[in-house]
Protein backbone atom coordinates (compact mmCIF):
# COMPACT_ATOMS: atom_id res chain seq x y z
CA UNK A 1 0.00 0.00 0.00
CA UNK A 2 2.61 2.46 1.21
CA UNK A 3 4.95 1.48 -1.62
CA UNK A 4 2.23 2.21 -4.15
CA UNK A 5 1.70 5.61 -2.56
CA UNK A 6 5.42 6.35 -2.84
CA UNK A 7 5.50 5.30 -6.48
CA UNK A 8 2.56 7.53 -7.22
CA UNK A 9 4.19 10.42 -5.37
CA UNK A 10 7.42 9.88 -7.29
CA UNK A 11 5.54 9.96 -10.55
CA UNK A 12 3.84 13.22 -9.58
CA UNK A 13 7.17 14.79 -8.64
CA UNK A 14 8.73 13.77 -11.94
CA UNK A 15 5.79 15.10 -13.92
CA UNK A 16 5.99 18.37 -11.98
CA UNK A 17 9.71 18.66 -12.79
CA UNK A 18 8.89 18.03 -16.41
CA UNK A 19 6.24 20.76 -16.23
CA UNK A 20 8.74 23.23 -14.72
CA UNK A 21 11.22 22.47 -17.48
CA UNK A 22 8.65 22.99 -20.23
CA UNK A 23 7.37 26.14 -18.58
CA UNK A 24 10.85 27.62 -18.37
CA UNK A 25 11.43 26.89 -22.04
CA UNK A 26 8.17 28.57 -22.98
CA UNK A 27 9.02 31.53 -20.74
CA UNK A 28 12.39 32.08 -22.41
CA UNK A 29 10.86 31.79 -25.88
CA UNK A 30 8.03 34.15 -24.95
CA UNK A 31 10.29 36.85 -23.51
CA UNK A 32 12.54 36.63 -26.54
CA UNK A 33 9.63 36.87 -28.97
CA UNK A 34 8.02 39.71 -27.02
CA UNK A 35 10.92 41.96 -27.91
CA UNK A 36 11.38 40.68 -31.45
CA UNK A 37 9.57 42.75 -34.09
CA UNK A 38 7.05 42.91 -35.68
CA UNK A 39 4.87 44.13 -32.81
CA UNK A 40 1.16 43.57 -33.19
CA UNK A 41 -0.64 45.90 -30.80
CA UNK A 42 -4.13 44.94 -31.93
CA UNK A 43 -3.98 41.48 -30.42
CA UNK A 44 -2.44 42.76 -27.18
CA UNK A 45 -5.29 45.24 -26.77
CA UNK A 46 -7.85 42.55 -27.52
CA UNK A 47 -6.33 40.32 -24.82
CA UNK A 48 -5.99 43.24 -22.40
CA UNK A 49 -9.69 43.86 -22.75
CA UNK A 50 -10.59 40.20 -22.26
CA UNK A 51 -8.20 39.63 -19.36
CA UNK A 52 -8.17 43.02 -17.69
CA UNK A 53 -11.12 45.21 -18.44
CA UNK A 54 -13.67 42.40 -18.26
CA UNK A 55 -12.26 41.33 -14.88
CA UNK A 56 -13.06 44.64 -13.15
CA UNK A 57 -16.57 43.65 -11.97
CA UNK A 58 -15.55 40.42 -10.26
CA UNK A 59 -12.41 41.98 -8.81
CA UNK A 60 -14.55 44.82 -7.41
CA UNK A 61 -16.93 42.46 -5.68
CA UNK A 62 -14.23 40.25 -4.24
CA UNK A 63 -12.03 43.13 -3.08
CA UNK A 64 -14.95 44.93 -1.44
CA UNK A 65 -15.92 41.84 0.55
CA UNK A 66 -12.33 41.18 1.54
CA UNK A 67 -12.20 44.76 2.84
CA UNK A 68 -15.39 44.25 4.89
CA UNK A 69 -14.30 40.91 6.31
CA UNK A 70 -10.81 42.00 7.10
CA UNK A 71 -11.94 45.13 8.93
CA UNK A 72 -14.44 43.15 11.01
CA UNK A 73 -11.89 40.45 11.89
CA UNK A 74 -9.28 42.99 12.86
CA UNK A 75 -11.79 45.05 14.84
CA UNK A 76 -12.71 41.97 16.88
CA UNK A 77 -9.21 41.82 18.34
CA UNK A 78 -8.30 45.51 18.30
CA UNK A 79 -11.36 46.48 20.30
CA UNK A 80 -10.37 44.01 23.00
CA UNK A 81 -7.03 45.73 23.46
CA UNK A 82 -8.49 49.16 22.86
CA UNK A 83 -6.51 50.01 19.74
CA UNK A 84 -9.21 50.61 17.10
CA UNK A 85 -6.95 53.34 15.79
CA UNK A 86 -4.64 50.77 14.27
CA UNK A 87 -7.28 48.87 12.32
CA UNK A 88 -6.74 51.20 9.39
CA UNK A 89 -3.00 50.70 9.21
CA UNK A 90 -3.18 46.95 9.66
CA UNK A 91 -5.80 46.64 6.93
CA UNK A 92 -3.94 48.93 4.57
CA UNK A 93 -0.64 47.12 4.95
CA UNK A 94 -2.11 43.63 4.64
CA UNK A 95 -4.14 44.49 1.60
CA UNK A 96 -1.48 46.40 -0.28
CA UNK A 97 1.37 44.04 0.50
CA UNK A 98 -0.34 40.69 0.39
CA UNK A 99 -4.07 40.25 0.03
CA UNK A 100 -4.61 42.57 -2.93
CA UNK A 101 -1.99 40.99 -5.21
CA UNK A 102 -2.76 37.40 -4.25
CA UNK A 103 -6.56 37.55 -4.27
CA UNK A 104 -6.60 39.43 -7.56
CA UNK A 105 -4.19 36.94 -9.10
CA UNK A 106 -6.28 33.98 -7.96
CA UNK A 107 -9.48 35.51 -9.30
CA UNK A 108 -7.85 36.26 -12.65
CA UNK A 109 -6.25 32.80 -12.79
CA UNK A 110 -9.66 31.22 -12.40
CA UNK A 111 -11.30 33.49 -14.89
CA UNK A 112 -8.69 34.18 -17.55
CA UNK A 113 -6.22 31.33 -17.11
CA UNK A 114 -8.93 28.72 -17.46
CA UNK A 115 -10.31 30.35 -20.57
CA UNK A 116 -6.84 30.60 -22.15
CA UNK A 117 -6.18 26.92 -21.59
CA UNK A 118 -9.56 25.90 -22.94
CA UNK A 119 -9.17 28.09 -26.02
CA UNK A 120 -5.61 27.07 -26.89
CA UNK A 121 -6.35 23.47 -25.99
CA UNK A 122 -9.24 23.22 -28.40
CA UNK A 123 -7.09 24.89 -31.05
CA UNK A 124 -4.50 22.21 -30.40
CA UNK A 125 -6.87 19.26 -30.73
CA UNK A 126 -8.42 20.63 -33.92
CA UNK A 127 -4.95 21.15 -35.47
CA UNK A 128 -5.35 24.93 -35.59
CA UNK A 129 -1.96 25.34 -33.92
CA UNK A 130 -0.38 23.16 -36.62
CA UNK A 131 -2.22 25.20 -39.22
CA UNK A 132 -0.76 28.41 -37.78
CA UNK A 133 2.71 26.95 -38.16
CA UNK A 134 2.14 25.89 -41.74
CA UNK A 135 0.99 29.46 -42.44
CA UNK A 136 4.48 30.55 -41.36
CA UNK A 137 3.24 31.99 -38.08
CA UNK A 138 4.95 31.17 -34.81
CA UNK A 139 2.20 30.03 -32.39
CA UNK A 140 4.11 31.39 -29.38
CA UNK A 141 4.46 34.80 -30.97
CA UNK A 142 0.88 34.81 -32.20
CA UNK A 143 -0.93 33.31 -29.20
CA UNK A 144 1.27 33.52 -26.11
CA UNK A 145 2.99 36.90 -26.45
CA UNK A 146 -0.23 38.99 -26.53
CA UNK A 147 -1.61 37.14 -23.49
CA UNK A 148 1.70 37.46 -21.67
CA UNK A 149 2.01 41.19 -22.25
CA UNK A 150 -1.67 41.85 -21.58
CA UNK A 151 -1.69 39.99 -18.27
CA UNK A 152 1.67 41.45 -17.25
CA UNK A 153 0.29 44.95 -17.70
CA UNK A 154 -3.31 44.44 -16.59
CA UNK A 155 -2.77 42.42 -13.42
CA UNK A 156 -0.84 45.21 -11.62
CA UNK A 157 -3.54 47.68 -12.72
CA UNK A 158 -6.28 45.38 -11.46
CA UNK A 159 -4.35 44.90 -8.23
CA UNK A 160 -3.99 48.62 -7.67
CA UNK A 161 -7.71 48.94 -8.21
CA UNK A 162 -8.42 46.02 -5.85
CA UNK A 163 -6.25 47.67 -3.18
CA UNK A 164 -8.30 50.84 -3.37
CA UNK A 165 -11.63 49.00 -3.28
CA UNK A 166 -10.48 46.79 -0.41
CA UNK A 167 -9.38 49.75 1.69
CA UNK A 168 -12.65 51.48 0.84
CA UNK A 169 -14.57 48.43 2.09
CA UNK A 170 -12.74 48.55 5.37
CA UNK A 171 -13.27 52.31 5.54
CA UNK A 172 -17.05 51.86 5.37
CA UNK A 173 -17.02 49.38 8.23
CA UNK A 174 -14.76 51.51 10.41
CA UNK A 175 -16.41 54.84 9.77
CA UNK A 176 -20.03 53.68 9.80
CA UNK A 177 -19.96 50.89 12.36
CA UNK A 178 -17.01 51.62 14.63
CA UNK A 179 -17.26 55.37 14.82
CA UNK A 180 -13.75 56.20 13.66
CA UNK A 181 -13.78 59.59 11.93
CA UNK A 182 -13.22 59.70 8.23
CA UNK A 183 -10.24 62.03 8.37
CA UNK A 184 -8.61 59.97 11.08
CA UNK A 185 -9.01 56.78 9.04
CA UNK A 186 -7.47 58.38 5.96
CA UNK A 187 -4.64 59.87 7.93
CA UNK A 188 -3.69 56.58 9.57
CA UNK A 189 -3.95 54.71 6.28
CA UNK A 190 -1.67 57.00 4.34
CA UNK A 191 0.85 57.51 7.10
CA UNK A 192 1.34 53.79 7.56
CA UNK A 193 1.80 52.95 3.87
CA UNK A 194 5.27 53.32 2.40
CA UNK A 195 6.13 53.35 -1.29
CA UNK A 196 7.98 50.09 -0.91
CA UNK A 197 4.78 48.41 0.31
CA UNK A 198 3.01 49.42 -2.83
CA UNK A 199 5.97 48.62 -5.05
CA UNK A 200 6.57 45.11 -3.68
CA UNK A 201 2.87 44.30 -4.00
CA UNK A 202 2.68 45.47 -7.60
CA UNK A 203 5.93 43.75 -8.50
CA UNK A 204 4.50 40.49 -7.23
CA UNK A 205 1.37 40.99 -9.26
CA UNK A 206 3.46 41.51 -12.39
CA UNK A 207 5.10 38.14 -11.74
CA UNK A 208 1.70 36.54 -11.05
CA UNK A 209 0.32 37.92 -14.32
CA UNK A 210 3.17 36.43 -16.30
CA UNK A 211 2.80 33.11 -14.49
CA UNK A 212 -0.91 32.94 -15.25
CA UNK A 213 -0.32 33.61 -18.94
CA UNK A 214 2.56 31.17 -19.29
CA UNK A 215 1.02 28.28 -17.37
CA UNK A 216 -2.37 28.59 -19.05
CA UNK A 217 -0.82 28.68 -22.52
CA UNK A 218 1.62 25.87 -21.75
CA UNK A 219 -1.18 23.60 -20.61
CA UNK A 220 -3.24 24.56 -23.66
CA UNK A 221 -0.44 23.70 -26.08
CA UNK A 222 0.10 20.34 -24.42
CA UNK A 223 -3.45 19.04 -24.54
CA UNK A 224 -3.79 15.47 -25.71
CA UNK A 225 -6.90 13.44 -26.31
CA UNK A 226 -9.75 15.53 -27.68
CA UNK A 227 -12.44 17.32 -25.70
CA UNK A 228 -11.84 15.29 -22.55
CA UNK A 229 -8.19 16.29 -22.73
CA UNK A 230 -9.15 19.97 -22.91
CA UNK A 231 -11.22 19.59 -19.73
CA UNK A 232 -8.40 17.87 -17.88
CA UNK A 233 -5.85 20.43 -19.00
CA UNK A 234 -8.06 23.30 -17.86
CA UNK A 235 -8.32 21.84 -14.37
CA UNK A 236 -4.60 21.17 -14.26
CA UNK A 237 -3.89 24.67 -15.47
CA UNK A 238 -5.92 26.30 -12.69
CA UNK A 239 -4.51 24.03 -9.98
CA UNK A 240 -0.91 24.55 -11.11
CA UNK A 241 -1.40 28.29 -11.41
CA UNK A 242 -2.74 28.48 -7.85
CA UNK A 243 0.21 26.48 -6.56
CA UNK A 244 2.74 28.55 -8.47
CA UNK A 245 1.17 31.84 -7.38
CA UNK A 246 1.30 30.86 -3.72
CA UNK A 247 4.85 29.53 -4.08
CA UNK A 248 6.04 32.65 -5.89
CA UNK A 249 4.30 34.81 -3.30
CA UNK A 250 6.10 33.04 -0.49
CA UNK A 251 9.42 33.37 -2.29
CA UNK A 252 9.11 37.07 -3.07
CA UNK A 253 7.66 38.00 0.30
CA UNK A 254 10.65 36.37 1.96
CA UNK A 255 13.04 37.97 -0.52
CA UNK A 256 11.65 41.47 0.02
CA UNK A 257 11.59 40.95 3.75
CA UNK A 258 15.33 40.39 3.70
CA UNK A 259 16.40 42.95 1.09
CA UNK A 260 14.10 45.81 2.16
CA UNK A 261 13.86 45.23 5.90
Amino acid sequence: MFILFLIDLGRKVISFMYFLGGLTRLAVQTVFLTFKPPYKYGRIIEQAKKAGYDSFPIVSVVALFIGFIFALQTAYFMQRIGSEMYIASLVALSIVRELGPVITALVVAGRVGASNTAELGSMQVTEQIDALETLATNPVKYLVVPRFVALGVMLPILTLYANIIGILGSYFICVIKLGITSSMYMHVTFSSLLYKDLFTGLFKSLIFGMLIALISCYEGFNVEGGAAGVGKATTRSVVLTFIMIIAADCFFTALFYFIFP
Partner: protein
Amino acid sequence: MMIEVQNLYKKFSSSRVLNDLSLNISKGQTCVIIGRSGCGKSVLLKHIIGLLKPDQGKVLVNHKEVGVLNELELSVLRSKISMVFQGGALFDSMNVAENVGFSLIEHTHISQKKILERVEESLVLVGLGGTGNLMPSELSGGMKKRVALARAICIRPEIILYDEPTTGIDPIAADSINELIRSLHDKLKVTSIVVTHDMKSAYHIADKIAMMYKGQIILEGTPKEIRESKNPVVHQFINGLAKGPITEAVDTFK
Protein backbone atom coordinates in the same frame (compact mmCIF):
# COMPACT_ATOMS: atom_id res chain seq x y z
CA MET B 1 12.98 16.68 -58.22
CA MET B 2 10.75 18.62 -55.91
CA ILE B 3 10.01 16.36 -52.96
CA GLU B 4 12.26 13.51 -51.90
CA VAL B 5 11.49 11.40 -48.88
CA GLN B 6 14.45 9.23 -47.96
CA ASN B 7 14.31 6.29 -45.56
CA LEU B 8 12.01 7.98 -43.08
CA TYR B 9 11.46 6.43 -39.64
CA LYS B 10 9.01 7.72 -37.07
CA LYS B 11 7.86 6.15 -33.86
CA PHE B 12 5.33 7.46 -31.33
CA SER B 13 5.50 6.22 -27.77
CA SER B 14 4.10 2.78 -28.49
CA SER B 15 3.80 2.35 -32.21
CA ARG B 16 6.05 2.47 -35.21
CA VAL B 17 4.27 4.60 -37.82
CA LEU B 18 6.83 5.20 -40.57
CA ASN B 19 9.32 2.44 -41.13
CA ASP B 20 11.95 3.15 -43.79
CA LEU B 21 9.61 5.04 -46.07
CA SER B 22 10.94 6.49 -49.33
CA LEU B 23 9.09 8.39 -52.01
CA ASN B 24 10.03 10.81 -54.79
CA ILE B 25 7.71 13.31 -56.41
CA SER B 26 8.93 15.43 -59.28
CA LYS B 27 8.03 19.01 -60.03
CA GLY B 28 4.51 19.52 -61.28
CA GLN B 29 3.44 15.97 -60.49
CA THR B 30 0.29 14.99 -58.62
CA CYS B 31 0.95 12.01 -56.38
CA VAL B 32 -1.95 10.27 -54.66
CA ILE B 33 -1.20 8.35 -51.50
CA ILE B 34 -3.60 5.62 -50.54
CA GLY B 35 -3.64 3.41 -47.48
CA ARG B 36 -5.84 2.39 -44.56
CA SER B 37 -6.92 4.82 -41.88
CA GLY B 38 -4.29 5.13 -39.19
CA CYS B 39 -1.45 3.87 -41.35
CA GLY B 40 0.42 7.16 -41.05
CA LYS B 41 -0.50 9.18 -44.12
CA SER B 42 -1.13 12.39 -42.15
CA VAL B 43 2.10 11.81 -40.26
CA LEU B 44 3.97 11.60 -43.57
CA LEU B 45 2.47 14.91 -44.78
CA LYS B 46 3.40 16.56 -41.48
CA HIS B 47 7.00 15.53 -42.00
CA ILE B 48 7.06 17.05 -45.45
CA ILE B 49 5.89 20.44 -44.18
CA GLY B 50 8.14 20.24 -41.12
CA LEU B 51 5.52 19.93 -38.39
CA LEU B 52 7.07 16.67 -37.21
CA LYS B 53 10.73 15.76 -37.07
CA PRO B 54 11.86 12.34 -38.31
CA ASP B 55 13.54 9.89 -35.95
CA GLN B 56 15.78 8.88 -38.84
CA GLY B 57 15.97 9.65 -42.53
CA LYS B 58 15.17 12.95 -44.20
CA VAL B 59 12.77 14.90 -46.35
CA LEU B 60 14.17 17.14 -49.06
CA VAL B 61 12.05 19.83 -50.65
CA ASN B 62 13.82 21.58 -53.51
CA HIS B 63 17.03 19.86 -52.37
CA LYS B 64 16.77 21.43 -48.90
CA GLU B 65 16.44 19.17 -45.89
CA VAL B 66 13.26 20.20 -44.07
CA GLY B 67 14.12 18.76 -40.65
CA VAL B 68 17.19 20.95 -40.12
CA LEU B 69 15.93 24.34 -41.35
CA ASN B 70 15.96 27.25 -38.91
CA GLU B 71 12.81 29.26 -38.28
CA LEU B 72 13.49 31.82 -41.00
CA GLU B 73 14.26 29.24 -43.67
CA LEU B 74 11.19 27.32 -42.61
CA SER B 75 8.99 30.41 -43.08
CA VAL B 76 10.41 30.89 -46.55
CA LEU B 77 9.66 27.27 -47.37
CA ARG B 78 6.16 27.57 -45.95
CA SER B 79 5.39 30.54 -48.13
CA LYS B 80 5.62 28.03 -51.00
CA ILE B 81 3.94 25.00 -49.43
CA SER B 82 0.35 24.81 -48.25
CA MET B 83 -1.38 22.06 -46.38
CA VAL B 84 -5.09 21.33 -46.33
CA PHE B 85 -5.76 19.62 -43.00
CA GLN B 86 -8.01 16.62 -42.65
CA GLY B 87 -10.49 18.45 -40.41
CA GLY B 88 -10.02 21.83 -42.08
CA ALA B 89 -8.29 23.39 -39.04
CA LEU B 90 -9.98 26.74 -39.65
CA PHE B 91 -9.39 29.38 -36.98
CA ASP B 92 -12.77 29.54 -35.30
CA SER B 93 -12.24 33.00 -33.86
CA MET B 94 -12.07 34.47 -37.37
CA ASN B 95 -14.53 34.66 -40.22
CA VAL B 96 -14.05 32.88 -43.52
CA ALA B 97 -12.37 35.81 -45.26
CA GLU B 98 -9.89 36.34 -42.42
CA ASN B 99 -9.10 32.63 -42.48
CA VAL B 100 -8.50 32.54 -46.20
CA GLY B 101 -6.46 35.73 -46.24
CA PHE B 102 -4.55 34.90 -43.04
CA SER B 103 -1.08 34.66 -44.60
CA LEU B 104 -1.55 37.75 -46.72
CA ILE B 105 -2.78 39.77 -43.74
CA GLU B 106 -0.03 38.56 -41.43
CA HIS B 107 2.98 38.44 -43.69
CA THR B 108 2.54 40.90 -46.53
CA HIS B 109 1.85 44.59 -46.97
CA ILE B 110 -0.73 44.13 -49.69
CA SER B 111 -3.58 46.61 -49.36
CA GLN B 112 -6.78 45.46 -47.75
CA LYS B 113 -8.72 45.88 -50.95
CA LYS B 114 -6.31 43.68 -52.91
CA ILE B 115 -6.39 41.06 -50.15
CA LEU B 116 -10.18 40.98 -50.24
CA GLU B 117 -10.04 40.49 -54.00
CA ARG B 118 -7.58 37.62 -53.68
CA VAL B 119 -9.71 36.05 -50.92
CA GLU B 120 -12.88 36.27 -52.99
CA GLU B 121 -11.07 34.85 -56.01
CA SER B 122 -9.91 31.84 -53.95
CA LEU B 123 -13.39 31.35 -52.52
CA VAL B 124 -14.93 31.42 -55.99
CA LEU B 125 -12.45 28.77 -57.11
CA VAL B 126 -13.73 26.38 -54.44
CA GLY B 127 -17.33 27.29 -55.19
CA LEU B 128 -17.98 29.39 -52.10
CA GLY B 129 -18.04 32.93 -53.48
CA GLY B 130 -19.71 35.47 -51.19
CA THR B 131 -19.31 33.50 -47.95
CA GLY B 132 -16.49 35.66 -46.60
CA ASN B 133 -18.47 37.04 -43.67
CA LEU B 134 -19.62 33.70 -42.27
CA MET B 135 -17.96 32.21 -39.20
CA PRO B 136 -16.54 28.67 -39.37
CA SER B 137 -19.15 27.47 -36.87
CA GLU B 138 -21.85 28.37 -39.41
CA LEU B 139 -20.40 26.08 -42.10
CA SER B 140 -21.06 22.42 -42.82
CA GLY B 141 -18.17 19.96 -42.70
CA GLY B 142 -17.78 19.96 -46.44
CA MET B 143 -17.82 23.74 -46.66
CA LYS B 144 -15.13 23.94 -43.97
CA LYS B 145 -12.92 21.71 -46.06
CA ARG B 146 -13.41 23.86 -49.09
CA VAL B 147 -12.59 27.01 -47.12
CA ALA B 148 -9.44 25.26 -45.93
CA LEU B 149 -8.64 24.57 -49.57
CA ALA B 150 -9.22 28.22 -50.42
CA ARG B 151 -6.86 29.22 -47.60
CA ALA B 152 -4.23 26.89 -49.05
CA ILE B 153 -4.41 28.25 -52.59
CA CYS B 154 -4.69 31.90 -51.54
CA ILE B 155 -0.90 32.23 -51.14
CA ARG B 156 -0.39 30.74 -54.64
CA PRO B 157 1.87 27.95 -53.44
CA GLU B 158 4.12 25.75 -55.54
CA ILE B 159 3.33 22.67 -53.50
CA ILE B 160 0.01 21.70 -51.95
CA LEU B 161 -0.48 18.82 -49.55
CA TYR B 162 -4.09 17.66 -49.38
CA ASP B 163 -5.12 15.49 -46.45
CA GLU B 164 -8.30 13.71 -47.51
CA PRO B 165 -9.79 16.70 -49.31
CA THR B 166 -12.91 14.88 -50.48
CA THR B 167 -13.72 12.74 -47.44
CA GLY B 168 -17.07 13.66 -45.96
CA ILE B 169 -18.10 15.83 -48.88
CA ASP B 170 -21.05 15.24 -51.16
CA PRO B 171 -20.13 13.67 -54.53
CA ILE B 172 -20.79 16.81 -56.55
CA ALA B 173 -18.63 19.04 -54.38
CA ALA B 174 -16.02 16.28 -54.31
CA ASP B 175 -15.92 16.20 -58.07
CA SER B 176 -15.47 19.96 -58.25
CA ILE B 177 -12.54 19.66 -55.82
CA ASN B 178 -11.02 17.00 -58.04
CA GLU B 179 -11.44 19.32 -61.01
CA LEU B 180 -9.78 22.10 -59.05
CA ILE B 181 -6.80 19.90 -58.13
CA ARG B 182 -6.49 18.94 -61.79
CA SER B 183 -6.64 22.50 -63.03
CA LEU B 184 -4.06 23.69 -60.48
CA HIS B 185 -1.89 20.90 -61.82
CA ASP B 186 -2.53 21.66 -65.50
CA LYS B 187 -2.51 25.44 -65.46
CA LEU B 188 -0.24 26.43 -62.58
CA LYS B 189 2.02 23.35 -62.54
CA VAL B 190 1.48 22.95 -58.80
CA THR B 191 3.17 19.92 -57.27
CA SER B 192 0.62 18.04 -55.18
CA ILE B 193 0.37 15.20 -52.76
CA VAL B 194 -3.17 14.02 -52.19
CA VAL B 195 -4.08 11.59 -49.45
CA THR B 196 -7.39 9.93 -50.20
CA HIS B 197 -9.47 6.79 -49.81
CA ASP B 198 -11.57 7.66 -52.78
CA MET B 199 -10.25 5.46 -55.60
CA LYS B 200 -12.43 7.14 -58.20
CA SER B 201 -10.86 10.52 -57.54
CA ALA B 202 -7.42 8.91 -57.22
CA TYR B 203 -7.66 7.54 -60.77
CA HIS B 204 -8.98 10.86 -61.96
CA ILE B 205 -6.33 13.22 -60.59
CA ALA B 206 -3.16 11.16 -60.15
CA ASP B 207 -0.02 11.16 -62.24
CA LYS B 208 1.21 8.58 -59.81
CA ILE B 209 -0.41 6.54 -57.06
CA ALA B 210 1.57 5.25 -54.08
CA MET B 211 0.19 2.67 -51.69
CA MET B 212 1.26 2.94 -48.07
CA TYR B 213 1.27 -0.17 -45.92
CA LYS B 214 3.08 -1.08 -42.71
CA GLY B 215 4.95 2.21 -42.66
CA GLN B 216 6.32 1.90 -46.19
CA ILE B 217 5.38 2.61 -49.77
CA ILE B 218 4.82 -0.90 -51.03
CA LEU B 219 3.96 -0.01 -54.61
CA GLU B 220 3.90 3.09 -56.76
CA GLY B 221 2.86 3.49 -60.33
CA THR B 222 0.52 5.18 -62.77
CA PRO B 223 -3.21 4.76 -62.15
CA LYS B 224 -3.26 2.15 -64.87
CA GLU B 225 -0.42 0.16 -63.33
CA ILE B 226 -2.07 0.28 -59.90
CA ARG B 227 -5.41 -0.84 -61.26
CA GLU B 228 -3.81 -3.79 -62.98
CA SER B 229 -1.47 -4.63 -60.13
CA LYS B 230 -1.20 -8.25 -59.11
CA ASN B 231 0.01 -7.31 -55.64
CA PRO B 232 -2.57 -8.88 -53.29
CA VAL B 233 -2.44 -6.03 -50.74
CA VAL B 234 -3.03 -3.37 -53.38
CA HIS B 235 -5.69 -5.50 -54.99
CA GLN B 236 -7.57 -5.88 -51.72
CA PHE B 237 -7.37 -2.17 -50.96
CA ILE B 238 -8.43 -0.72 -54.29
CA ASN B 239 -11.31 -3.13 -54.58
CA GLY B 240 -12.35 -2.62 -50.97
CA LEU B 241 -12.47 -6.27 -49.99
CA ALA B 242 -12.99 -7.34 -46.39
CA LYS B 243 -10.96 -10.51 -46.86
CA GLY B 244 -7.32 -10.44 -47.88
CA PRO B 245 -3.75 -10.00 -46.69
CA ILE B 246 -4.34 -6.59 -45.05
CA THR B 247 -7.01 -7.77 -42.66
CA GLU B 248 -5.17 -11.01 -41.91
CA ALA B 249 -1.86 -9.31 -41.15
CA VAL B 250 -3.16 -6.64 -38.80
CA ASP B 251 -2.39 -8.57 -35.63
CA THR B 252 1.12 -9.58 -36.58
CA PHE B 253 2.43 -6.05 -37.19
CA LYS B 254 3.82 -3.82 -34.39
